C-alpha cells in the first residue's frame, strides 16, 4: 500500500480523535505502571499536530509527516514525544524516496528502537510497531494482528521506561504506549477503508 497525503491526513485525524477520546483511559493505564500522564501527553501532542496541519496546510506527504513529528516532539513532554516524534520523522525522511507504507514503517520502527533502545518483549510500544510493520510487509495487517500485539504486552516484565522500575510488578498491565500505538494502527485501517 502506498501512502498519499490525503490518506495520511485522514489517518492522523482519525488517530488524533481516538487519542482525545481515550485520553483518560491511556493516563489510567499509565498510572498503573508509570506516572499517569500518557493520555494527557499524547492528547496535547495530537492537538498540536492538528493545529500545525491546519495552520501550515502541507502540500505533500513529506511535509505533513515532518510537521506531525515536530508537533509531537515539541508538545508531548514525556517519553512518547521523542519516540512518536522520531518515528514520524523517520517516515518523513523515507517518504522522499518511497511512499510504500511498509517501508515507511520499517524506517519508523528502526528510529523508535534507536531512540529508546527497546527490543521486542521489553513491554513498550515497540511490541506493537514491530509486528504491525511485519504484517504490513506481508500485506496482511488486520485488527486482529494489532489487538494481539497490544495484548501481548500484558504478561511481560517491563525492561524500558518508567514501568521498568517496577520489575515483576509491571506484569498483568497493558503498556500504555502499546495501547496508543494500537490506536494509531487501527486508525490506519480505518483510513484505508475510506479509500
Amino acid at each position, binding site marked *: 500500500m502506498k501512502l498519499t497525503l490525503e490518506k495520511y491526513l485522514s489517518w492522523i485525524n482519525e488517530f488524533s480523535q481516538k487519542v482525545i477520546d481515550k485520553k483518560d483511559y491511556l493516563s489510567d493505564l499509565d498510572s498503573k505502571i508509570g506516572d499517569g*500522564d500518557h493520555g494527557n501527553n499524547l492528547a496535547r501532542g495530537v492537538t498540536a499536530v492538528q493545529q500545525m496541519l491546519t495552520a501550515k496546510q502541507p502540500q505533500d506527504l513529506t511535509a505533513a509527516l515532518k510537521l506531525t513529528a515536530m508537533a509531537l516532539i515539541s508538545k*508531548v513532554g514525556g517519553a512518547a514525544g521523542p519516540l512518536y516524534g522520531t518515528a514520524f520523522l523517520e517516515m518523513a525522511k523515507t517518504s522522499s524516496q518511497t511512499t510504500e507504507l511498509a517501508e515507511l514503517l520499517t524506517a519508523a520502527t528502526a528510529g523508535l528502537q534507536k531512540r529508546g533502545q527497546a527490543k521486542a518483549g521489553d513491554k513498550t510500544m515497540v511490541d506493537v510497531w514491530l509486528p504491525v510493520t511485519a504484517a504490513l510487509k506481508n500485506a496482511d495487517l488486520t485488527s486482529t494482528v494489532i489487538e494481539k500485539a497490544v495484548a501481548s504486552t500484558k504478561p511481560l516484565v517491563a525492561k524500558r521506561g518508567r514501568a521498568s522500575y517496577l520489575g515483576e510488578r509491571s506484569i498483568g498491565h497493558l503498556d500504555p504506549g502499546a495501547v496508543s500505538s494500537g490506536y494509531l494502527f487501527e486508525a490506519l485501517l480505518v483510513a484505508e477503508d475510506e479509500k
Partner: protein
Amino acid sequence: MKYGILIVSHVPEIAAGVPRLIQQVAKDVAITSAGGTDENEIGTSLEKIQQAVEQNAGSEILAFYDLGSARMNLEMAAELATKKLRIYDVALIEGAYVAASLLQAQVGLPAIEKQLAPLKIKNQE
C-alpha cells in the same frame, strides 16, 4: 571555556537546585539547566534543553539527566545542536557534582570520565 555542564530534569525545581549545589564548588564552570515541560509540568522540553545548550558558555557540553525520557530529548537536542553533547548515564546529582568539581580543578575529560564510571546507574542493557 571548553566544557560546560547541562542538567536536565523532569522537575523545574530540581533543574534550579542542582546548579546551585554544584556551582558552589565550581565557580568558574558554565552550568545551565532545563527542567519540566513548556508549561512547567513534570516532563522535559526539547526547546528548553536546546536553549540551555545554547546559553551554556561551554563549547562542549557534559549532560546529566534524571529519567530515561529526558535522555531521549537530550539525544534529539544533541542531533540538532552544533555543539558536541556528551550524555552521561550516571546518578544525576552525584555525577554532576563530581564533574563540576573536577572541571573546576582543571582535571581533563578522560580522568573525569574515569571518576564518573562507578556512578553509572542508568540505561544498562
